[in-house]
Protein backbone atom coordinates (compact mmCIF):
# COMPACT_ATOMS: atom_id res chain seq x y z
CA UNK A 1 0.00 0.00 0.00
CA UNK A 2 1.33 3.43 -0.81
CA UNK A 3 1.74 6.05 1.84
CA UNK A 4 -0.87 8.21 0.07
CA UNK A 5 -3.49 5.64 0.94
CA UNK A 6 -2.60 5.61 4.60
CA UNK A 7 -5.62 6.30 6.79
CA UNK A 8 -4.67 5.26 10.29
CA UNK A 9 -1.32 4.40 11.86
CA UNK A 10 -0.74 2.84 15.26
CA UNK A 11 2.86 3.42 16.32
CA UNK A 12 4.09 1.56 19.39
CA UNK A 13 0.76 1.70 21.25
CA UNK A 14 0.84 0.68 24.90
CA UNK A 15 -1.83 0.68 27.53
CA UNK A 16 -1.51 -0.10 31.21
CA UNK A 17 -4.19 -1.55 33.51
CA UNK A 18 -5.66 1.33 35.53
CA UNK A 19 -5.43 -0.62 38.80
CA UNK A 20 -2.30 -2.80 38.66
CA UNK A 21 -0.28 -0.77 36.15
CA UNK A 22 0.65 -3.91 34.19
CA UNK A 23 0.76 -3.67 30.39
CA UNK A 24 -2.51 -4.68 28.69
CA UNK A 25 -1.26 -3.65 25.26
CA UNK A 26 2.39 -3.28 24.42
CA UNK A 27 4.33 -1.98 21.45
CA UNK A 28 1.60 -2.41 18.86
CA UNK A 29 2.32 -0.94 15.46
CA UNK A 30 0.46 -1.31 12.18
CA UNK A 31 -1.03 0.77 9.37
CA UNK A 32 -4.52 0.77 7.93
CA UNK A 33 -4.81 1.94 4.34
CA UNK A 34 -7.84 3.02 2.32
CA UNK A 35 -9.73 0.09 0.88
CA UNK A 36 -8.26 -2.29 3.41
CA UNK A 37 -10.17 -4.87 5.43
CA UNK A 38 -8.13 -5.82 8.45
CA UNK A 39 -9.02 -8.48 10.98
CA UNK A 40 -7.57 -8.79 14.46
CA UNK A 41 -7.80 -12.23 16.00
CA UNK A 42 -6.60 -13.70 19.25
CA UNK A 43 -7.74 -15.55 22.33
CA UNK A 44 -10.12 -14.05 24.90
CA UNK A 45 -8.47 -11.38 27.02
CA UNK A 46 -5.61 -10.88 24.58
CA UNK A 47 -6.40 -7.19 24.13
CA UNK A 48 -8.32 -7.19 20.80
CA UNK A 49 -11.17 -5.01 22.03
CA UNK A 50 -8.83 -2.75 23.99
CA UNK A 51 -6.88 -2.15 20.82
CA UNK A 52 -10.01 -1.13 18.91
CA UNK A 53 -11.09 1.15 21.77
CA UNK A 54 -7.66 2.77 21.74
CA UNK A 55 -7.91 3.39 17.98
CA UNK A 56 -11.26 5.14 18.58
CA UNK A 57 -9.64 7.13 21.43
CA UNK A 58 -12.23 5.73 23.82
CA UNK A 59 -9.44 4.82 26.24
CA UNK A 60 -6.25 6.71 26.92
CA UNK A 61 -3.01 5.11 25.78
CA UNK A 62 0.11 5.15 27.93
CA UNK A 63 2.66 4.76 25.14
CA UNK A 64 2.94 5.33 21.41
CA UNK A 65 0.89 7.38 19.04
CA UNK A 66 -2.15 7.09 16.82
CA UNK A 67 -2.17 9.05 13.57
CA UNK A 68 -5.13 9.74 11.34
CA UNK A 69 -4.15 10.75 7.80
CA UNK A 70 -0.57 11.35 8.96
CA UNK A 71 -1.61 13.73 11.74
CA UNK A 72 -1.26 12.73 15.40
CA UNK A 73 -4.71 12.04 16.85
CA UNK A 74 -3.55 13.75 20.04
CA UNK A 75 -3.60 17.16 18.36
CA UNK A 76 -7.01 16.90 16.73
CA UNK A 77 -10.32 17.22 18.47
CA UNK A 78 -11.42 13.85 19.81
CA UNK A 79 -15.00 14.12 18.48
CA UNK A 80 -13.52 14.99 15.07
CA UNK A 81 -11.44 11.81 15.19
CA UNK A 82 -14.49 9.77 16.21
CA UNK A 83 -16.54 11.23 13.38
CA UNK A 84 -14.03 9.61 11.04
CA UNK A 85 -13.22 6.47 13.03
CA UNK A 86 -16.35 4.88 14.47
CA UNK A 87 -16.17 2.04 16.97
CA UNK A 88 -19.04 -0.43 17.19
CA UNK A 89 -19.34 -2.49 20.34
CA UNK A 90 -20.33 -6.15 20.21
CA UNK A 91 -23.31 -5.37 22.49
CA UNK A 92 -25.34 -2.90 20.45
CA UNK A 93 -26.24 0.02 22.68
CA UNK A 94 -29.47 1.62 21.54
CA UNK A 95 -31.34 4.46 23.20
CA UNK A 96 -34.92 4.26 24.41
CA UNK A 97 -37.21 4.91 21.42
CA UNK A 98 -37.85 3.76 17.88
CA UNK A 99 -35.25 2.57 15.40
CA UNK A 100 -35.67 5.80 13.44
CA UNK A 101 -35.13 7.90 16.56
CA UNK A 102 -31.96 5.94 17.24
CA UNK A 103 -30.77 6.63 13.71
CA UNK A 104 -31.57 10.34 14.03
CA UNK A 105 -29.90 10.70 17.42
CA UNK A 106 -26.28 11.16 16.19
CA UNK A 107 -27.40 14.18 14.14
CA UNK A 108 -28.26 15.96 17.39
CA UNK A 109 -24.54 15.95 18.20
CA UNK A 110 -22.54 19.11 17.57
CA UNK A 111 -19.98 17.28 15.45
CA UNK A 112 -22.58 16.02 12.93
CA UNK A 113 -25.23 18.72 12.96
CA UNK A 114 -22.70 21.22 11.56
CA UNK A 115 -22.69 19.69 8.10
CA UNK A 116 -24.96 16.68 7.98
CA UNK A 117 -28.63 15.89 8.17
CA UNK A 118 -30.51 12.67 8.69
CA UNK A 119 -31.12 11.16 5.24
CA UNK A 120 -34.13 8.85 5.36
CA UNK A 121 -33.64 7.80 1.74
CA UNK A 122 -30.12 6.61 2.45
CA UNK A 123 -31.30 4.75 5.55
CA UNK A 124 -34.03 2.97 3.58
CA UNK A 125 -31.44 1.99 0.99
CA UNK A 126 -29.28 0.46 3.75
CA UNK A 127 -32.29 -1.28 5.25
CA UNK A 128 -33.28 -2.79 1.91
CA UNK A 129 -29.79 -4.27 1.64
CA UNK A 130 -30.54 -6.31 4.75
CA UNK A 131 -34.07 -7.23 3.73
CA UNK A 132 -35.96 -4.69 5.87
CA UNK A 133 -38.45 -2.01 4.87
CA UNK A 134 -39.64 1.25 6.42
CA UNK A 135 -41.83 -0.57 8.95
CA UNK A 136 -38.58 -1.53 10.69
CA UNK A 137 -37.99 2.15 11.46
CA UNK A 138 -41.12 2.24 13.64
CA UNK A 139 -40.06 -0.65 15.86
CA UNK A 140 -38.96 0.33 19.36
CA UNK A 141 -35.67 -0.87 20.75
CA UNK A 142 -37.56 -3.16 23.14
CA UNK A 143 -39.11 -4.99 20.17
CA UNK A 144 -35.81 -5.73 18.46
CA UNK A 145 -33.97 -9.04 18.56
CA UNK A 146 -30.23 -8.95 19.31
CA UNK A 147 -29.52 -9.23 15.60
CA UNK A 148 -31.91 -6.44 14.66
CA UNK A 149 -30.38 -4.22 17.33
CA UNK A 150 -26.91 -4.88 15.90
CA UNK A 151 -28.16 -4.12 12.36
CA UNK A 152 -29.61 -0.84 13.68
CA UNK A 153 -26.33 0.06 15.40
CA UNK A 154 -24.42 -0.78 12.22
CA UNK A 155 -26.68 1.39 10.04
CA UNK A 156 -26.46 4.17 12.64
CA UNK A 157 -22.68 4.13 12.21
CA UNK A 158 -22.57 3.62 8.44
CA UNK A 159 -25.00 6.49 7.65
CA UNK A 160 -22.46 8.85 9.27
CA UNK A 161 -20.00 7.90 6.52
CA UNK A 162 -16.87 7.40 8.57
CA UNK A 163 -13.54 6.62 6.92
CA UNK A 164 -12.90 3.66 9.20
CA UNK A 165 -15.30 1.29 10.90
CA UNK A 166 -13.96 -0.53 13.95
CA UNK A 167 -16.15 -3.59 14.47
CA UNK A 168 -15.81 -5.42 17.76
CA UNK A 169 -17.19 -8.96 17.29
CA UNK A 170 -20.15 -7.53 15.37
CA UNK A 171 -21.81 -10.85 14.66
CA UNK A 172 -20.85 -12.78 17.80
CA UNK A 173 -24.42 -12.99 19.11
CA UNK A 174 -26.23 -13.16 15.76
CA UNK A 175 -27.87 -16.03 13.94
CA UNK A 176 -26.32 -17.08 10.64
CA UNK A 177 -28.81 -15.20 8.44
CA UNK A 178 -28.49 -11.90 10.34
CA UNK A 179 -24.72 -12.27 10.54
CA UNK A 180 -24.61 -12.68 6.74
CA UNK A 181 -26.80 -9.56 6.36
CA UNK A 182 -24.47 -7.56 8.63
CA UNK A 183 -21.42 -8.73 6.65
CA UNK A 184 -23.16 -7.77 3.39
CA UNK A 185 -23.91 -4.31 4.79
CA UNK A 186 -20.28 -3.70 5.68
CA UNK A 187 -18.94 -5.07 2.41
CA UNK A 188 -21.36 -2.95 0.36
CA UNK A 189 -20.37 0.14 2.33
CA UNK A 190 -16.68 -0.52 1.65
CA UNK A 191 -17.27 -1.22 -2.03
CA UNK A 192 -19.09 2.09 -2.52
CA UNK A 193 -15.92 4.07 -1.82
CA UNK A 194 -12.97 1.67 -1.92
CA UNK A 195 -10.33 4.38 -1.95
CA UNK A 196 -11.66 6.29 1.02
CA UNK A 197 -12.80 3.68 3.51
CA UNK A 198 -11.40 0.87 5.59
CA UNK A 199 -12.63 -1.60 8.15
CA UNK A 200 -11.02 -3.25 11.15
CA UNK A 201 -12.76 -6.31 12.49
CA UNK A 202 -12.15 -8.04 15.78
CA UNK A 203 -13.37 -11.61 15.68
CA UNK A 204 -12.91 -14.86 17.52
CA UNK A 205 -14.30 -16.63 14.45
CA UNK A 206 -11.29 -17.32 12.24
CA UNK A 207 -13.41 -18.28 9.22
CA UNK A 208 -15.24 -14.96 9.46
CA UNK A 209 -11.91 -13.17 9.83
CA UNK A 210 -10.63 -14.83 6.63
CA UNK A 211 -13.88 -14.18 4.78
CA UNK A 212 -14.21 -10.55 5.79
CA UNK A 213 -10.60 -9.38 5.62
CA UNK A 214 -7.60 -9.00 3.35
CA UNK A 215 -5.09 -9.09 6.19
CA UNK A 216 -5.11 -10.68 9.63
CA UNK A 217 -3.23 -9.52 12.71
CA UNK A 218 -2.82 -11.96 15.57
CA UNK A 219 -2.63 -10.65 19.09
CA UNK A 220 -1.63 -12.54 22.22
CA UNK A 221 -1.09 -11.16 25.73
CA UNK A 222 -1.36 -7.62 24.42
CA UNK A 223 1.33 -8.00 21.74
CA UNK A 224 1.10 -8.55 18.00
CA UNK A 225 2.39 -11.91 16.84
CA UNK A 226 2.87 -11.13 13.17
CA UNK A 227 0.91 -10.39 10.03
CA UNK A 228 -0.56 -12.79 7.55
CA UNK A 229 -2.89 -12.56 4.61
CA UNK A 230 -3.31 -10.83 1.30
Amino acid at each position, binding site marked *: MSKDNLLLRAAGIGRRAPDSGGWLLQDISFDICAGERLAIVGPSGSGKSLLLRALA*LLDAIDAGEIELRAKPAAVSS*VPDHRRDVIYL*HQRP*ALFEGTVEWNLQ*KPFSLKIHRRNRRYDRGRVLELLRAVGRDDSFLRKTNGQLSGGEAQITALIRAIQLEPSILLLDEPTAALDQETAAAAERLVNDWLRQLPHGRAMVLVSHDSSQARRMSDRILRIRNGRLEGNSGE
Partner: protein
Amino acid sequence: MSDTYINLSWSQVAWASALVVVNAFISVLIRLGLERRLVLAALRMVVQLILIGAVLKWVFSLRQWYAVVPLMIAMSLIGSLAAVQQTNRRYPGIWLNSIAAVFASSWLMIFVGILLIVRVHPWYSPQYAIPLAGMILGNTLSGISLTLDRFAEELTSHRDQIEAFLALGATRKEAAREPIRKAVTTGMMPTVNFMVLAGIVTLPGTMTGQLLAGVDPISAVKYQIVIMFLLVSGTALGTVGIAIFAYRRLFNSRHQFLYWLISQPDKSRLDGILSP
Protein backbone atom coordinates in the same frame (compact mmCIF):
# COMPACT_ATOMS: atom_id res chain seq x y z
CA MET B 1 -40.35 34.88 73.08
CA SER B 2 -43.88 34.88 74.49
CA ASP B 3 -44.68 34.28 78.17
CA THR B 4 -46.86 31.32 77.07
CA TYR B 5 -43.68 29.35 76.36
CA ILE B 6 -43.46 26.27 78.61
CA ASN B 7 -39.95 25.39 79.68
CA LEU B 8 -39.70 21.59 79.83
CA SER B 9 -38.27 19.88 82.88
CA TRP B 10 -36.08 16.76 82.62
CA SER B 11 -38.91 14.70 84.14
CA GLN B 12 -41.17 15.74 81.23
CA VAL B 13 -38.46 14.62 78.80
CA ALA B 14 -38.26 11.32 80.67
CA TRP B 15 -42.01 10.83 80.24
CA ALA B 16 -41.63 11.32 76.49
CA SER B 17 -38.81 8.79 76.38
CA ALA B 18 -41.21 6.19 77.78
CA LEU B 19 -42.88 6.28 74.36
CA VAL B 20 -39.84 4.50 72.92
CA VAL B 21 -40.56 1.65 75.27
CA VAL B 22 -44.05 1.44 73.77
CA ASN B 23 -42.54 1.27 70.31
CA ALA B 24 -40.07 -1.39 71.41
CA PHE B 25 -42.93 -3.38 72.96
CA ILE B 26 -44.88 -3.27 69.68
CA SER B 27 -41.76 -4.42 67.83
CA VAL B 28 -41.39 -7.42 70.18
CA LEU B 29 -45.10 -8.17 69.99
CA ILE B 30 -45.26 -8.40 66.22
CA ARG B 31 -41.70 -9.70 65.91
CA LEU B 32 -40.31 -6.83 63.88
CA GLY B 33 -36.88 -7.32 65.42
CA LEU B 34 -36.42 -3.55 65.55
CA GLU B 35 -36.46 -3.08 69.34
CA ARG B 36 -32.69 -3.15 69.88
CA ARG B 37 -32.04 -0.76 66.99
CA LEU B 38 -34.84 1.50 68.13
CA VAL B 39 -33.60 1.78 71.70
CA LEU B 40 -29.98 2.27 70.62
CA ALA B 41 -31.01 4.96 68.11
CA ALA B 42 -33.06 6.72 70.78
CA LEU B 43 -30.16 6.61 73.24
CA ARG B 44 -27.79 7.87 70.58
CA MET B 45 -30.15 10.71 69.66
CA VAL B 46 -30.49 11.76 73.32
CA VAL B 47 -26.72 11.72 73.90
CA GLN B 48 -26.03 13.59 70.64
CA LEU B 49 -28.64 16.27 71.36
CA ILE B 50 -27.52 16.77 74.97
CA LEU B 51 -23.93 17.13 73.76
CA ILE B 52 -24.84 19.60 71.01
CA GLY B 53 -27.08 21.40 73.51
CA ALA B 54 -24.10 21.85 75.83
CA VAL B 55 -21.93 23.07 72.94
CA LEU B 56 -24.65 25.45 71.79
CA LYS B 57 -25.15 26.78 75.31
CA TRP B 58 -21.44 27.59 75.45
CA VAL B 59 -21.44 29.13 71.94
CA PHE B 60 -24.60 31.14 72.68
CA SER B 61 -23.13 32.50 75.91
CA LEU B 62 -19.84 33.41 74.21
CA ARG B 63 -21.47 35.14 71.18
CA GLN B 64 -18.13 35.39 69.34
CA TRP B 65 -17.31 34.58 65.69
CA TYR B 66 -14.41 32.34 66.79
CA ALA B 67 -16.90 30.06 68.50
CA VAL B 68 -19.64 30.18 65.85
CA VAL B 69 -17.52 29.74 62.70
CA PRO B 70 -15.60 26.62 63.86
CA LEU B 71 -18.89 25.03 64.85
CA MET B 72 -20.31 25.78 61.40
CA ILE B 73 -17.16 24.37 59.79
CA ALA B 74 -17.46 21.19 61.86
CA MET B 75 -21.15 20.87 60.91
CA SER B 76 -20.28 21.33 57.22
CA LEU B 77 -17.47 18.78 57.30
CA ILE B 78 -19.60 16.16 59.04
CA GLY B 79 -22.40 16.92 56.54
CA SER B 80 -20.02 16.50 53.58
CA LEU B 81 -18.82 13.14 54.84
CA ALA B 82 -22.34 11.98 55.69
CA ALA B 83 -23.44 12.85 52.14
CA VAL B 84 -20.84 10.47 50.68
CA GLN B 85 -21.44 7.83 53.32
CA GLN B 86 -25.02 7.40 52.10
CA THR B 87 -23.96 6.65 48.50
CA ASN B 88 -23.78 3.16 47.05
CA ARG B 89 -21.03 3.89 44.53
CA ARG B 90 -17.90 5.98 44.88
CA TYR B 91 -14.89 7.24 42.95
CA PRO B 92 -11.51 8.63 43.96
CA GLY B 93 -11.94 12.25 44.97
CA ILE B 94 -15.61 11.93 45.95
CA TRP B 95 -14.93 13.10 49.53
CA LEU B 96 -13.20 16.28 48.39
CA ASN B 97 -15.91 16.88 45.79
CA SER B 98 -18.58 16.57 48.47
CA ILE B 99 -16.75 18.94 50.84
CA ALA B 100 -16.33 21.50 48.05
CA ALA B 101 -19.99 21.24 46.97
CA VAL B 102 -21.34 21.46 50.53
CA PHE B 103 -19.16 24.43 51.47
CA ALA B 104 -19.66 26.35 48.22
CA SER B 105 -23.44 25.98 48.15
CA SER B 106 -24.36 26.06 51.84
CA TRP B 107 -22.04 28.81 52.95
CA LEU B 108 -23.14 31.04 50.12
CA MET B 109 -26.77 30.57 51.13
CA ILE B 110 -25.99 30.95 54.84
CA PHE B 111 -24.34 34.33 54.18
CA VAL B 112 -27.07 35.42 51.77
CA GLY B 113 -29.59 34.59 54.50
CA ILE B 114 -27.67 36.23 57.35
CA LEU B 115 -26.30 39.31 55.60
CA LEU B 116 -28.74 40.17 52.83
CA ILE B 117 -32.13 38.86 53.85
CA VAL B 118 -32.47 38.58 57.65
CA ARG B 119 -29.69 41.20 58.13
CA VAL B 120 -28.45 39.88 61.43
CA HIS B 121 -26.18 42.10 63.48
CA PRO B 122 -23.56 40.97 64.32
CA TRP B 123 -23.52 38.47 61.43
CA TYR B 124 -22.19 35.69 63.65
CA SER B 125 -25.07 35.93 66.11
CA PRO B 126 -25.42 32.22 67.03
CA GLN B 127 -29.20 32.48 67.49
CA TYR B 128 -29.52 32.97 63.70
CA ALA B 129 -26.31 31.63 62.16
CA ILE B 130 -26.38 28.15 63.68
CA PRO B 131 -30.03 27.17 63.06
CA LEU B 132 -29.81 28.58 59.53
CA ALA B 133 -26.59 26.68 58.86
CA GLY B 134 -28.08 23.49 60.28
CA MET B 135 -31.17 23.63 58.11
CA ILE B 136 -29.37 24.59 54.91
CA LEU B 137 -26.64 21.99 55.45
CA GLY B 138 -29.15 19.24 56.24
CA ASN B 139 -31.06 19.79 53.02
CA THR B 140 -28.00 20.33 50.86
CA LEU B 141 -26.24 17.21 52.02
CA SER B 142 -29.22 14.99 51.33
CA GLY B 143 -29.56 16.59 47.87
CA ILE B 144 -25.87 16.01 47.21
CA SER B 145 -26.06 12.45 48.41
CA LEU B 146 -29.06 11.63 46.19
CA THR B 147 -27.40 13.32 43.20
CA LEU B 148 -24.13 11.44 43.62
CA ASP B 149 -25.93 8.15 44.01
CA ARG B 150 -28.15 8.61 40.98
CA PHE B 151 -25.32 9.94 38.80
CA ALA B 152 -23.08 6.95 39.53
CA GLU B 153 -26.04 4.61 39.07
CA GLU B 154 -26.95 6.16 35.70
CA LEU B 155 -23.34 5.99 34.50
CA THR B 156 -22.98 2.38 35.57
CA SER B 157 -26.28 1.09 34.24
CA HIS B 158 -26.04 3.05 30.97
CA ARG B 159 -22.33 2.64 30.36
CA ASP B 160 -22.86 1.00 26.95
CA GLN B 161 -25.13 3.83 25.74
CA ILE B 162 -22.75 6.50 27.01
CA GLU B 163 -19.80 4.88 25.30
CA ALA B 164 -21.82 4.33 22.12
CA PHE B 165 -22.68 8.02 22.13
CA LEU B 166 -19.03 8.99 22.65
CA ALA B 167 -18.02 6.58 19.88
CA LEU B 168 -20.45 8.34 17.52
CA GLY B 169 -18.70 11.66 18.17
CA ALA B 170 -20.45 13.03 21.26
CA THR B 171 -18.48 15.38 23.46
CA ARG B 172 -18.21 14.44 27.12
CA LYS B 173 -20.80 17.11 27.87
CA GLU B 174 -23.25 15.64 25.35
CA ALA B 175 -22.65 12.12 26.65
CA ALA B 176 -23.15 13.08 30.30
CA ARG B 177 -26.04 15.52 29.83
CA GLU B 178 -28.84 13.01 30.44
CA PRO B 179 -27.24 11.34 33.51
CA ILE B 180 -26.55 14.80 34.97
CA ARG B 181 -30.13 15.92 34.33
CA LYS B 182 -31.56 12.81 35.98
CA ALA B 183 -29.17 13.04 38.93
CA VAL B 184 -29.87 16.71 39.65
CA THR B 185 -33.63 16.14 39.33
CA THR B 186 -33.40 13.28 41.84
CA GLY B 187 -31.35 15.41 44.23
CA MET B 188 -33.76 18.33 44.03
CA MET B 189 -36.99 16.35 44.21
CA PRO B 190 -37.40 15.97 48.03
CA THR B 191 -36.83 19.72 48.58
CA VAL B 192 -39.21 20.68 45.78
CA ASN B 193 -41.83 18.23 47.10
CA PHE B 194 -41.34 19.58 50.62
CA MET B 195 -41.99 23.07 49.29
CA VAL B 196 -45.14 21.94 47.47
CA LEU B 197 -46.54 20.20 50.55
CA ALA B 198 -45.49 22.83 53.11
CA GLY B 199 -48.50 24.06 55.01
CA ILE B 200 -50.83 21.44 53.51
CA VAL B 201 -49.51 18.13 54.75
CA THR B 202 -46.77 19.29 57.11
CA LEU B 203 -45.92 22.37 59.10
CA PRO B 204 -42.21 22.87 58.44
CA GLY B 205 -39.70 22.79 61.30
CA THR B 206 -38.82 26.46 61.64
CA MET B 207 -42.46 27.48 61.68
CA THR B 208 -43.36 24.76 64.17
CA GLY B 209 -40.47 25.80 66.43
CA GLN B 210 -41.45 29.43 66.32
CA LEU B 211 -45.11 28.64 66.96
CA LEU B 212 -44.09 26.55 69.98
CA ALA B 213 -42.03 29.49 71.20
CA GLY B 214 -45.14 31.69 70.97
CA VAL B 215 -44.18 33.75 67.91
CA ASP B 216 -46.98 35.35 65.87
CA PRO B 217 -48.03 32.85 63.12
CA ILE B 218 -47.62 35.39 60.28
CA SER B 219 -44.13 36.24 61.48
CA ALA B 220 -43.34 32.50 61.69
CA VAL B 221 -44.67 32.02 58.14
CA LYS B 222 -42.43 34.82 56.82
CA TYR B 223 -39.38 33.16 58.36
CA GLN B 224 -40.43 29.82 56.94
CA ILE B 225 -40.82 31.23 53.42
CA VAL B 226 -37.35 32.82 53.56
CA ILE B 227 -35.85 29.59 54.85
CA MET B 228 -37.56 27.47 52.20
CA PHE B 229 -36.07 29.67 49.48
CA LEU B 230 -32.64 29.44 51.07
CA LEU B 231 -32.99 25.65 51.34
CA VAL B 232 -34.09 25.18 47.75
CA SER B 233 -31.35 27.50 46.44
CA GLY B 234 -28.69 25.80 48.56
CA THR B 235 -29.85 22.38 47.38
CA ALA B 236 -29.94 23.51 43.74
CA LEU B 237 -26.39 24.87 43.94
CA GLY B 238 -25.19 21.81 45.85
CA THR B 239 -26.74 19.26 43.48
CA VAL B 240 -25.60 21.02 40.31
CA GLY B 241 -22.17 21.60 41.88
CA ILE B 242 -21.63 17.98 42.87
CA ALA B 243 -22.90 16.74 39.49
CA ILE B 244 -20.38 18.97 37.70
CA PHE B 245 -17.54 17.94 40.02
CA ALA B 246 -18.34 14.24 39.56
CA TYR B 247 -18.74 14.66 35.79
CA ARG B 248 -15.35 16.35 35.48
CA ARG B 249 -13.76 13.59 37.53
CA LEU B 250 -15.34 10.75 35.55
CA PHE B 251 -15.01 12.20 32.03
CA ASN B 252 -11.61 13.57 31.06
CA SER B 253 -10.86 16.39 28.64
CA ARG B 254 -10.19 13.80 25.88
CA HIS B 255 -13.89 12.91 26.03
CA GLN B 256 -13.16 9.54 27.59
CA PHE B 257 -15.44 7.97 30.18
CA LEU B 258 -13.32 6.75 33.11
CA TYR B 259 -15.85 4.10 34.15
CA TRP B 260 -13.27 2.05 36.03
CA LEU B 261 -13.01 4.78 38.67
CA ILE B 262 -16.54 3.98 39.91
CA SER B 263 -16.54 1.30 42.59
CA GLN B 264 -18.71 -0.17 45.30
CA PRO B 265 -17.94 1.54 48.61
CA ASP B 266 -15.41 0.14 50.97
CA LYS B 267 -17.19 0.79 54.25
CA SER B 268 -14.76 2.55 56.54
CA ARG B 269 -14.91 3.14 60.28
CA LEU B 270 -16.23 6.60 59.57
CA ASP B 271 -19.22 5.02 57.85
CA GLY B 272 -20.14 3.29 61.09
CA ILE B 273 -20.08 6.53 63.00
CA LEU B 274 -22.15 8.45 60.48
CA SER B 275 -24.61 5.73 59.53
CA PRO B 276 -28.07 5.73 61.10
